[in-house]
């Protein structure tokens, strides 16, 4: 059930965005979370970040998005340094960015379709009918049908919330997308719908993507390249084909789920 590459969208294929992270450090009080992260994403490339729970993967994404201020280091997105660029430049980058939060972060005071179209309406009640039908289209892409459109986030399951949040993240046709554990809490079939959707964003629409996941099946389907975060640093990165021959003991342990 791969999302059909619709011809109109093919024409306006995105250039994608380049991300270059150098020497990124972030601590909370005494606790060092990121300790010199160096990482790059080429335009139109899909990078998957793996790593144990609590290693700072979500913190890394929040630093890239400018939601957390790093202690030091640079984050360049298409040549704009997100850590010190003026607000206007950062807003321009945000305009091209979509983010799926680990917990979904749906607005619980708004119903599902208003959530999905939020990037376009900024929460105002304009163009109601066309916005709702756009939302229904986007919901179909994440495997949800129209019946959920008028429900509140609290009325749907966690896995459905995650997919609604994914639909919201891509509603404004971003060319730079961040997904924090997009398949966590989904059954294998629904997870594959999401994997195909993300892969389609990259392959068919030319988006650059950074995806965090624990789900190795998902990582193999989504990634062009994989990077592993451990103790505040990227300890290995390489093409997804190299994942099984990384030559790194920690990567082997992680991808095979060994506890020894």
């Amino acid at each position, binding site marked *: 059930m791969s999302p059909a590459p619709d011809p109109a969208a093919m024409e306006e294929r995105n250039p994608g965005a380049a991300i270059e992270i150098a020497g990124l450090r972030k601590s909370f009080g005494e606790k060092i979370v990121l300790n010199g992260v160096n990482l790059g994403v080429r335009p139109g490339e899909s990078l998957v970040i793996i790593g144990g729970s609590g290693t700072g993967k979500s913190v890394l994404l929040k630093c890239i998005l400018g939601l957390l201020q790093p202690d030091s280091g640079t984050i360049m997105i298409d040549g704009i340094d997100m850590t010190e660029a003026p607000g206007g430049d950062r807003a321009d980058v*945000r305009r091209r960015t979509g983010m799926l939060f680990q917990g979904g972060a749906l607005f619980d005071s708004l119903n599902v379709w208003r959530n999905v179209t939020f990037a376009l309406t900024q*929460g105002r009640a304009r163009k109601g009918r066309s916005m709702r039908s756009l939302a229904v289209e986007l919901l179909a892409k994440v495997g949800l049908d129209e019946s959920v459109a008028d429900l509140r986030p609290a009325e749907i399951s966690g896995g459905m919330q995650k997919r609604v949040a994914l639909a919201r993240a891509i509603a404004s046709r971003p060319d730079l997308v961040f997904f924090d554990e997009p398949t966590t809490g989904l059954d294998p079939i629904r997870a594959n719908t999401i994997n195909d959707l993300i892969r389609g964003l990259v392959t068919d629409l030319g988006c650059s993507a950074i995806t965090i996941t624990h789900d190795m099946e998902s990582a193999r389907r989504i990634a062009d390249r994989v990077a592993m975060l451990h103790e505040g640093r990227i300890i290995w990165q390489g093409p997804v084909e190299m994942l099984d021959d990384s030559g790194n003991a920690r990567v082997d342990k992680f991808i095979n789920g060994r506890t020894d």
Partner: protein
Amino acid sequence: MTDSFTRLFAPIGAAALSFFAAIGRAAIFAGRALLAAVRPPYYPARFVQQLLSIGYFSLPVVGLTALFTGAALAQQIYVGGERFNAASTVPAVTVIAIVRELAPVLGGLMVAGRVSSAMAAELGTMRVTEQIDALVTLRTDPFQFLVAPRLLAAIVVLPILTLVANAIGVMGGYLLAVYRLGFNAASYLETTRDYLEVTDIVSSLVKAAVFGFVLALMGCYHGYHTSGGAAGVGRATTNAVVSAFLLILLANLVITVLVFG
């Protein structure tokens, strides 16, 4: 000697410093919110929604508070005044006490109890569930979308609530005085009118607007800066209400001294 002196007063100094730091942070927060309120985009629908939830739904609570307080006040002034053969001061003292102090202050405190806590809980939950972060990534300024409508609505609606509370509070005193203490209805109202001055009403409304600002600011400030999950939301709610209460009482003292001192 110097040592024990330092040891005794250092914690007090530290507490004072952190108190002023907190005031400073809240002031910066307020400045950001007011700036956001005057810059487009505006959210009129959210403003109206807040008018309703702060104002309309506070009417019963504020009305009952004023009614009971006005009646109790009339009773006390009667008992107190009787000792000096001054029981006839009931209408004059009641209206002055209600309009100048009790309606705005008690109304402000009741609304703070209802609204500051609700704002802190809602924004705090949005913070810990990353909804505020999500707003930013969806190119919406949380100060414009969340804080400004609440602040403006509270500033507008508290004076209206206080007007209502003034009227109901005076009516509470009137009912008790007429039906229990045997005052003449017509002359009670006439005395009330004679002793009520424009300054009283204006100061009452100014106080209410300030209290509205304070209680919404404390709710939003503590909610916005919540951290630490559900327990953090609990702390934010408590801090919002306590700080709103204290600031309302402090602001009342300052305005009273400035206007009537």
